[in-house]
């Protein structure tokens, strides 16, 4: 039987988390293949619109990962991002969108293991939630009747 596989979009900051993903790959650390990666210059570059747009486009989960506090290549990008994400998370949960759909992590360039572990954790959570329905734009809009 084919188990349902979630589609997850990960926005990874160029300086830490993307390098962390790279290290996980080079080190041949296994992690679930459900993630598509978008490399961004900084977690601070991730506009909440990107996250909402990903959900609308049918991703079952979204992960944003950046440098650990204090490590941001641009000094404060991840601090600013942290505030934005806290607000987005609270708003979506309030509306009844499952909290596990949108997740955040700090993964440094040296944390290949952690990257694999985060991806595993996010994938498990999203699998548990099942296919996304809320905020998803369905393939076919209502046809013209009448």
């Amino acid at each position, binding site marked *: 039987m084919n188990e349902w596989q979630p589609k997850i979009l990960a926005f990874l900051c160029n300086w830490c988390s993307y390098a962390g993903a790279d290290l996980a790959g080079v080190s041949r650390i296994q992690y679930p293949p459900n993630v598509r990666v978008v490399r961004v210059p900084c977690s601070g570059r991730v506009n909440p619109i990107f996250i909402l747009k990903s959900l609308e486009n049918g991703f079952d989960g979204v992960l944003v990962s950046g440098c650990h506090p204090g490590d941001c290549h641009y000094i404060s990008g991840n*601090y600013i991002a942290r505030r934005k994400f806290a607000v987005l998370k609270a708003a979506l949960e309030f509306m009844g969108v499952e909290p596990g759909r949108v997740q955040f992590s700090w993964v440094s360039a040296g944390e290949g293991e952690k990257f694999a572990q985060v991806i595993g954790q996010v994938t498990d959570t999203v699998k548990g939630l099942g296919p996304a329905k809320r905020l998803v734009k369905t393939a076919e809009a209502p046809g013209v009747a009448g």
Partner: protein
Amino acid sequence: MKAGGSEQELREAARKLLKDKKVGVVVGYARGTGELRSTPAFIRHGKDADRLIFDRTCGISLVPHLRKALKALPKGAKAAVVAKGCDGRALVQYMAEGQLKRDDVVIVGVACDGVLDPRKSDVLSDSCLRCRYPNPPVYDVFVAEPKAVGAGDEYAAVTEFEKLGPEERWGWFQTQFAKCIRCYACRNACPMCYCEECFVDQTNPLWFGKSAEQPDTAMFHIVRALHTAGRCVDCGACERACPLGVRLGLLNKRIEKEIKERFGYTAGLDPEATPALATYDEEDKQEFIL
């Protein structure tokens, strides 16, 4: 509704400002259609000051009108604006965001007992029922006596809503979105929605579809709430502007609560404070981050 004593004071204050050439225009309220509506008035001559009213029908935020009035004035000229507590907070937030200089505007503060929900003729707006700031934080002239600061739990409705399960919460929001016709009255009535070009009007990229179906409508409201996060002063102008009774002030209030609890920030109180989402604290809580 009869012009009360404070209304006479208001007219007198407007006349004086115009007579002394302190301002080129006074932006205030005049009677709209019927007894329960008000409309923006741009008073340029003392003789027209008698059009000014202030009562429970004055639910429009005049801040967007002030913005237009300032643009229409010759350079250097000032405008006066009639401001309730929430409107005053919006003006303070403008100053905090570098959108307005304190000296460009004469704030005519009015003591506000709350304004009516235009869809229910005798009930106060939700945002007024929970209001804690009936007086503008800054003003040049104050008409009548400032009100006692509101007490009670301003987040009671948020807490109540959170007791519902996610299915019910989602269902309630779906109903709200289903009413929306994307006329953008909420956005245009909002003092804080001052972007030259709104994200929904951008075409390349076109962020979200233009349909009035889900989730296009939901996306508009969610992103608008996020764009006003840490800036919204809960004036309720958006809900009162909505022709179809979409009630999304609750989402804004929930966001406001998060920002207050997490970052200790309340919008529209201090013109010197950096808005919550434009700054950070290294010690910000990050329990949600993996």
